[in-house]
């Protein structure tokens, strides 16, 4: 069973307490954007076999959204971090690099 550390309430939460929220750090597009931008934002997904940055909600706990970095090929969790950021913080990136040198994710790596 997947266990994620909730960065808000500090609980190591079992998967049954959590709700998956899909790919993280999507760039939002609003009125006036092109069809292509909307398509990418709404439907285009990285869907990597490897390092995945994603959103989770501690649904049956404190109720807060947070981020996790996880490997979709092994289910290894590299770390969790605040929802209030648009990219993973330095220590998360380092934790990923230590295990998966050369990983990349869209524009940042």
């Amino acid at each position, binding site marked *: *069973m*997947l266990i994620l550390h909730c960065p808000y309430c500090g609980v190591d939460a079992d*998967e*049954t307490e959590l*709700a*998956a929220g*899909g*790919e993280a750090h999507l760039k939002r597009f609003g009125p006036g954007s092109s*069809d*292509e931008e*909307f*398509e*990418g934002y*709404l*439907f*285009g*997904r*990285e*869907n*990597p*076999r490897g390092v*995945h940055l*994603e959103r989770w909600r501690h649904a049956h706990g404190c109720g807060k959204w947070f981020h996790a970095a*996880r490997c*979709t*090929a*092994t*289910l290894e969790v590299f770390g969790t971090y605040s929802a209030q950021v648009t990219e993973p913080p330095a220590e998360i990136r380092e934790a990923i690099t230590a295990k998966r040198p050369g990983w990349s994710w869209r524009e940042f790596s």
Partner: protein
Amino acid sequence: MQRYSVFAVAREALRFHKGWERAWASPEPKKKYDVIIIGAGGHGLATAYYLGMNHGIRNVAVIEKGWLGGGNTGRNTTIIRSNYLQDPSAAIYEKARSLYETMSQDLNYNVMFSPRGVMMLAQTEHEVRGYKRTAHANSLQGVSTEFITPERVKELCPIMEIRGPRYPVLGALWQARGGTARHDAVAWGYARACSAMGMDIIQKCEVTGIRTEGGQVKGVSTSKGEIDCDKLAIVVAGHSGQVAEMAGFRLPIESLALQALVSEPIKPCMDVVVMANTVHGYMSQSDKGEMVIGGGTDGFNNYTQRGSFHHIEETVRALVETFPIISRLKMLRQWGGIVDMTGDRSPILSKTPVHNIFINCGWGTGGFKAIPGSGWAMAELVAKGEPGPLAAEFGLNRFREGRFIDESVAAGVAH
């Protein structure tokens, strides 16, 4: 190809079964093919079959990283039905269902198609309205379905508890010509027929790169070397995102785990397929007597072909409520497959940003039933370079144009 028949069985019986040939050849790859298909699941193999049968294109290779049928085609719970809501879905799934009716004869291979009837239970008022609407849509589409009463449900499936405390059965959408087939046999039957047409089925050969030149496909790099081609079809289900990335484009797809399980074999007790979408579970009985059980997908992106235990628990809990007699059954096996989910829960049969690369994916939790229809439509797309009527609505451009084929409202657990 040696034909299978009662006479062949008798002949072989007389010579101690020493005369059977291999069902398909295992050749080394040639330098170049007219068409390369990546993925020897049902959809890839059916595409190859109809390229040969309908379009006379036989210089074809089907390249598979594992063994044929080892992906979702050999992992599914084999439900076949065509009672979808939207017209483009009904057209392609009904084409497929009708091809299943004669598949054993067409392929000279027993795929054990069993049109035993599929029933989708309505257990909320919302579902009653939804399924009545689908039944009306189906009659306009020429797909034979009907909305039946709880009494008829009980008559068709006596082991069901229709007065359950949480979700009593209020009726069901019934498709009498839906059913099941043997999944491995579908892959094997197509493989044998393709091999007999001179096509190469190359197993244990992983595609690791796609070579393009000036926006045009040139060939693929594989664990057995470089192979050239004029046209390329990507038919790899859960791995579509990965393979599309090799060709430099992104897909509106996420890969999730979907699990299934079977029980110990018991005496025949259920001769229809029952799906209960509100409580998230479905069940049928295999010819061996095992109860074949499945439910909804797990929640997060996953390539491990393993699922989370609590999803199984949820499915079993729902089914024990619906079928109290299974409460003491022992489960024999449980497994997972990686399913390719699109935003509107409909498949993609499409041209791609690279000239002469075509993709067939997004069948998600429900593509076994579609195999022959999908192969038929995909072969036409690959042969002509443009989609025919069956594939036309399923292009990638629908996501840009907001022209969805929304089946997600129609079925919570869409198998």
